[in-house]
């Protein structure tokens, strides 16, 4: 019997649960999505098709999913986390076998009404499993090598599958999010120091491997790194994305060129302007003020999550909320770094803003779990 179940009686039930939703978080999520709709409307040249309309539908569906997930008690989610993890691994294998090739990588499964990107599901399932693992694991065993190796394996299996697609961005995200949960769970500092050292070693190994038979990355990945390091090297070829993206951002200036006035996006100089590079359109049209505001809202979401995690005494709840927050943070941090020329171009969308079904649905589902943890938080007798 866990601490949480012991106090289960003091959690709200029935429709009273709605009162205990984290309304601030919900409002922030709706705001961010609204920004997304606005930008999709702009990049479509002032039209609801082809992007705003399906995006709004998915958002509505996502909100529904979020409510349903939120209503279901958090211990249910803890109990199904192993299942979720195994299910997502199954999907990853399925995409390997039957997946649709998009943009040179196998990433989708067509499930009729939408295309499912299993790697999105995996991000959340991994966080849930690790949270459940550390909830189950007695605290004193947390830093024992054997009990550290097990979660590392749990992280590396989906990472390897995603890397094979190949999707470098998501696999980095998986490792970072998994590592984050382990760190929060209290794994000893030394392990992380060792991993970071090993990571540096690996990076140098990757560069050493270039051009040899045991080359660790694909050629296009090396080229992306090259152009990241020096975009001016090839302004019309591989460096085009970064160069044009920086031009769009920079030309926005302090207050932007005005809604629907961004020439870079409207005239197609921006690649992937409705997905990965949508932030550049925002920054071009609303300038530093617009870009900073979005960053601020994102950080508020993170802070709301941290506050919610600290407030709950349930270990699974805290870890899953923080894990989801880290995943969310990694999404926008990597995406923004990428469009600002601070990171190589890896296919990571801007969460809740970029056009795309799976990511939005999965994220809203994940925030449903955050809400569930918030609702089913044991409270001192509130009456």
């Amino acid at each position, binding site marked *: *019997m*866990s*601490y949480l179940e012991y106090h289960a009686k003091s959690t709200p039930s029935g429709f009273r649960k709605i009162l205990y939703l984290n309304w601030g978080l919900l409002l922030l999520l709706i705001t961010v999505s609204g920004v997304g709709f606005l930008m999709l409307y702009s990049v479509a040249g002032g039209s609801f098709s082809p992007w705003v309309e399906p995006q709004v539908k998915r958002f509505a569906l996502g909100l529904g999913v979020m409510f349903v997930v939120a209503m279901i008690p958090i211990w249910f989610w803890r109990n199904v986390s192993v299942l979720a993890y195994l299910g997502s691994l199954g999907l990853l294998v399925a995409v390997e076998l039957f997946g649709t090739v998009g943009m040179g990588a196998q990433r989708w499964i067509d499930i009729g009404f939408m295309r499912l990107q299993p790697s999105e599901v995996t991000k959340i399932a991994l966080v849930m499993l690790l949270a459940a693992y550390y909830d*189950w694991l*007695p*605290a004193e065993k*947390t830093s024992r090598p054997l009990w550290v190796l097990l979660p590392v394996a749990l992280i590396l299996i989906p990472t390897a599958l995603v890397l094979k697609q190949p999707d470098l961005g998501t696999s980095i995200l998986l490792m970072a999010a998994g590592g*984050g949960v382990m*760190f*929060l*769970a*209290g794994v000893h500092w030394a392990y992380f120091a060792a991993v970071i050292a090993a990571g540096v070693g690996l990076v140098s190994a990757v560069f050493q491997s270039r051009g040899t038979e045991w080359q660790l990355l694909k050629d296009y990945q090396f080229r992306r790194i090259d152009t990241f390091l020096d975009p001016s090297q090839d302004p019309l070829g591989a460096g085009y994305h970064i160069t*044009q993206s*920086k*031009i*769009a*951002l*920079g*030309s*926005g*200036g*302090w207050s932007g060129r005005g809604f629907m006035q961004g*020439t*870079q996006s*409207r*005239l*197609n*100089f921006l690649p992937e302007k409705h997905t990965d590079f949508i932030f550049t359109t925002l*920054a071009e049209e609303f*300038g*530093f003020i617009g*870009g*900073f505001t979005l*960053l601020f809202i*994102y*950080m508020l979401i*993170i*802070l709301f999550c*941290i506050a919610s*995690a*600290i407030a709950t*005494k349930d*270990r699974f709840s*805290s*870890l899953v909320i*923080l894990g989801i927050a*880290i995943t969310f*943070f990694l999404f926008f*941090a990597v995406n*923004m*770094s990428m469009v*600002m020329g*601070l990171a190589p171009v890896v296919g990571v969308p801007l969460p809740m803003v970029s056009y795309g079904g799976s990511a939005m649905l999965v994220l809203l589902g994940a925030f449903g779990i955050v809400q569930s943890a918030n609702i089913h938080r044991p409270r001192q007798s509130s009456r």
Partner: protein
Amino acid sequence: MKRNSKDTDASHGRMTRRALFLGGLQLAFAGGLAARMRYLQVDQADEFRLLAEENRINIRLLPPARGQIFDRNGLIIAQNSPSYRITVVPEDAGDVEEVIAKLSNLLPLDPEDLERARTEMRRSPPFLPITLADRIGWEDISKVAVNAPALPGVTPEVGLTRVYPQLGDFAHVVGYVGPVSDYDLSKMEDPEPVLLIPRFQIGKVGFEAKREDVLRGKAGAKRVEVNATGRVMRELDRREGISGADMQLTIDAGLQNYVQARLGRESAAAVVIDCEDGDIRAICSSPSFDPNLFVRGISVADYRMLTEDNYRPLSNKTVQGTYPPGSTFKMITALAALEEGVVGPEETVWCPGYLKVAGRRFHCWKRAGHGHVDLNASLKRSCDVYYYDVAIKTGIDKISAMANKFGLGIKHDLPMSAVAQGITPTKEWKERSYGKDWLVGDTANVSIGQGFMLASPLQLAVMTARIATGRSVTPRLLKTLDGVEQPNGAGEPLGVSENNLRMVRKGMYSVSNDRRGTAYRSRIIGDGMRMAGKTGTSQVRNITAAERAAGVIRNEDLPWERRDHALFVSFAPYDNPKYAVAVVVEHGGGGSKAAAPIARDVMLQALYDGTPPLEAYPKADRSRIKAQQERLERERVKRPLGSRSSRA
């Protein structure tokens, strides 16, 4: 498994610390992102704004409209007319080949053009229009327009092209334009960007080439917004170019048209100059050609026909062709002698049919000789011996200097191609050119306009105008430039004794008004209209002593290219000179027979500003002239002259 709450509290406390630590890291990272955003968007905003504009804005040149050319009465000589072409946008056409097949049912498509279009299609993005047919007629354009729904992506387009409605009449004066060639560009130091527009037309020959500077105008520009693939999204602004300056020539297109018709198929040249102000009223070289052929790009067959013609239609004989002036030069020799005082107007020279110069016989054209000849008779009957005699007394350098004074051996500054200087030989000139001493026989030859002496029809007309007025009349071709009147060529007095000039003019009067004059048959009837002139027949071959002994072969019996050139210079009216006319008929035979009638007809046409009354002709000729006038009238109708309203 059971956990005590202390244990839980400890682990929760550690998690809170680590969560706050990670939150701090995230906040720091976000701060870094914000700083980067600020750096790009605030610190470097101007630079990136500029780059964005460079991305977005393309500058396209707008070709200026070329200046138009008019005659002195405002009749259009060179204009800009809409030209139609058919383009297809592959992207809109769908199946391009199918569209082309449909199009070729409507109008003939050149397979060569199609091949070029296909290669172009493969290279350029699918939204750029490709030209399928160029310079097509209005009818074909209408057919395409009517069938537009069945021809997706096909559009008729309008551009401007040069058109010369007067066809051959001005081919040698105005010349023609053509697309800029690589060769043209290679000759230019720093070509204007407008020249790089494909198929931009520049002057190639004649006036069009000489005054390219003002005819071309200045290119305009438009700024267009393009997207990443180069498609034009919209026009931002445009600065219209400055059209080239309109020009008005001194030429009277009606007269020019008549002269061209009158020269017919002869290989000939005729120049009409206004004695008062030097305006060139007509300047024709025959045969001519249609300059429009060159604008379109002349076919190999047409070009060969022009270049292989013995009569050299492409050469402008009026300014480019130089001929021995023959007896038309005698006025100059006479004036030189009179001014030097080596002979008086009344003094006579004995002509036995030849003069022995340095042991060699120089023959008069009349074997029997003219007997006693004074100045007037020498001109009237064109005695050669008189001139041998007075020229040798005067000396070549004096004669040459006099010739220069009257515009011979001088390159007149006219905006036409290849204006020739001609030759007025001097002792120094022969030394320089041939490295040989001047012989007295050379002087004898030059005295009658043979030997080294060469002059263009234009120079002969100028010479005649100067004799008629005693002023240094200078030819002028450009009347107004952009509406501004150009300085005329009335000229200053030549400083030649008016008395001597009057004697020479009188001699010329006798040539065409005295019963014994060489051009009496080509006289003009009517007081106040009388014409003074001088015939010339210049040899293009040497007559050997043997031939002379056997009897000189008649021109009619010689092959065309060995026959004599026929020349005639004249001015009228005698008492108040208005026009000077020079006519040269290449290998035409005798000046009195081949050149004088043309000059007379041209002169009358100029004097009456249209078809002259038959009363202006000698009675005996009137029926023949009437027939000739009617024939010419019919031939002139075929020419488009009279389309006074511009078609543009």
